[in-house]
């Protein structure tokens, strides 16, 4: 990784003594972040695996119960998250180019869209609460025509609240990260030679986006064509 154009950065105050140069330090940090993200894949992977097993067990009940979720909110939130991923990628780009104002602007846009996502999610949770669709605490699904669907319906909504809940928790952590990075950016910490924290936080943000890319079709869009029993 001995790129010649990074040579001036070798005396950067941000270069830790156990690294050869800034490029090696950057590659190590990126690799380390990916190792952390692999543990996150395992964390969410367990839930996706369990979901797959139960959906295979109760395909009709899951398809029917999915209609208690509003795919319009889900699609809107997907679009919101994709915009936040774009602004995050542009923030990293601005940091690498040393564009301080652009970096701060893009971090703020990312935070606003992240919070917008959480707002819509909170609104959805409130609707489920009002509709009595929260399992275990009074949630019930009136399947008088198909009573065998009532229990799988509870299971699907358990998956829904656990998976979207942990995703929302990750979003909250992400907004916290962005706040920290924004404060660092305001102090002028980042430049063309040192932008690792922006890049690393960006990887986290995009990962959380990817989780939602799978949650949206698997929770909201199953059985849209099946008549509600």
């Amino acid at each position, binding site marked *: 990784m001995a790129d010649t154009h990074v040579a001036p950065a070798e005396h950067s105050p941000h270069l830790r003594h156990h690294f050869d140069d800034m490029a090696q330090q950057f590659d190590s940090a990126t690799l380390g972040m990916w190792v952390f993200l692999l543990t996150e894949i395992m964390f969410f992977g367990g839930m996706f*695996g369990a979901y797959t097993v139960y959906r295979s067990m109760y*395909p009709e009940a899951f398809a029917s119960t999915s209609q208690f979720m509003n795919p319009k909110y889900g699609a809107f939130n997907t679009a919101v998250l994709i915009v936040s991923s774009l602004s995050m990628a542009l923030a990293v780009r601005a940091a690498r180019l040393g564009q301080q104002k652009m970096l701060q602007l893009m971090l703020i846009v990312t935070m606003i869209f992240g919070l917008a996502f959480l707002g819509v999610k909170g609104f959805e949770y409130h609707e489920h609460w009002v509709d009595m669709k929260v399992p275990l605490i009074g949630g019930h699904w009136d399947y008088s025509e198909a009573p065998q669907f009532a229990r799988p319906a509870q299971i699907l909504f358990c998956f829904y609240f656990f998976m979207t809940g942990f995703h929302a928790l990750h979003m909250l952590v992400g907004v916290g990260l962005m706040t920290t990075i924004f404060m660092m950016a305001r102090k002028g910490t980042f430049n063309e030679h040192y932008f690792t924290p922006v890049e690393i936080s960006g990887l986290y943000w995009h990962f959380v986006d990817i989780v939602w890319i799978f949650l949206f079709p698997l929770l909201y869009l199953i059985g849209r064509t099946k008549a509600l029993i």
Partner: protein
Amino acid sequence: MHSIPSFRTYVIIWAILTIMTGVTYYVAQIELGPWNIVIALLIAFFKMSLVVLFFMNVKADSPLTKLFVGAGFFWMAILLALTLSDYFSRGWMPGGKFW
């Protein structure tokens, strides 16, 4: 360190991701039997690949990082394949079929 993707590249990737979100939404309204889930997952994998390669810029990362990223998704494939082969081969699934 790595080449910096252009502003235009990022906007194009964003546009494709947004269009694919619309596509996955509308295809889900059409009855395609078992193909609904197949198409939904294919689109999700496509979107994930774009985010990983361009937004996360793994395209320009070191071969070691690429290997780690690949290992993560390979692990996920093992988790799903072995879990499902176990459940289905034991006859524990009342439906006995996918979806």
